[in-house]
């Protein structure tokens, strides 16, 4: 019998059906303090599997463009602009990873090349369809933070 799974499945389906009820912190309201964003920016816990998808998606985080990741050996041509993320969970705690993802410039300083993925502090002349929008959603940020948490050496 699979009652347990069915019930879990139903609960998950209900959650998916109620995105409006989900709370998330707006980009301008995320507080980066001591190089950290201490609390999650959505009330739905990050999903590492979704995070892995957003990590490699060229229209999502596209993290692989700049960061190598040995946990994704099937994805060829990983970039070397930023540091490799192998074992990053052992070096950086989630609150720091979240802050880097949200707005790396608040952590590394204004010179860093890394874009901010959940900030409206962006460059000049943003194309029309991206004005007022962030690269990732709050949930994708949490999902990627959760995925990075799995990268242990």
């Amino acid at each position, binding site marked *: 019998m699979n009652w347990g799974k069915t019930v879990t499945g139903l609960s998950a389906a209900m959650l998916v059906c109620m995105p409006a009820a989900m709370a998330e912190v707006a980009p301008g309201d995320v507080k980066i303090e001591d190089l950290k964003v201490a609390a999650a920016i959505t009330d739905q816990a990050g999903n590492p599997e979704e995070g892995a998808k957003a990590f490699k998606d*060229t229209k999502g985080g*596209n993290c*692989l*463009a*700049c960061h190598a990741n040995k946990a994704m050996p099937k994805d*060829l*041509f*990983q*970039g*070397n*602009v930023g540091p490799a993320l192998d074992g990053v969970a052992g070096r950086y705690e989630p609150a720091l990873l979240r802050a880097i993802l949200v707005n790396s410039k608040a952590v590394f300083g204004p010179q860093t*090349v890394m*874009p*901010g993925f959940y900030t409206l*502090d*962006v*460059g*000049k*002349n*943003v*194309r*029309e369809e*991206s004005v007022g*929008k962030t*690269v990732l959603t709050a949930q994708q940020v949490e999902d990627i933070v959760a995925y990075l948490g799995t990268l242990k050496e």
Partner: protein
Amino acid sequence: MVTDGETWWNKVDGKEGKSCASCHNDAATTMKGVGARYPKWDEASKKPINIELQINKCRTEQMGAEPFEFDKGGQIGLTAYIKHQSLGMPMGIDLKAGEMQKWWDMGKETYYTRFGQLNLSCANCHEDLMGKMIRADHLSQGQTNGFPTYRLKDGNNSIHNRFRGCIRDTRAAQPKAFSDELMALEVYVAWRGTGLSVETPSVRQ
């Protein structure tokens, strides 16, 4: 690209019944060095002029022909053919002519300004990180000495098309080809290549 340009060089077009060759004869002699010196100051328009716009000026003022639209007709081929006549010559534009220095300043400002949702300047990738890999792309020094160039993924490419492509990739609004902003950038980037040999037509990834 270059042989296509040679065909256009000898092709009669427009009301005056002229080709490029009617006035300029053998490009190997008359166009030698041109590709290394452009963009240059154009006194008539009080702006810098590049090879593409000089071709259009000849077409409208001397040949009585329609100007080429951006990247259309013989624009890329003729530009490549003309620049190829300077193959191996060192790049060196004249910033003392007219107000070229002012345009160089404008171009430099653009080069170091961060654009778009991804918040990137030209310098971020092509100065600070040249040689690194961004996914399968090798970040170049962003030099213009090999343009127009053959890009493996999409064929013949003009300088302004590549400028626009790079700016698009920062998720910024794209300036028009030959706009003041991109002409200034061409002046500045050509200057950054001072001393490099003209390589047109080069091949890029």
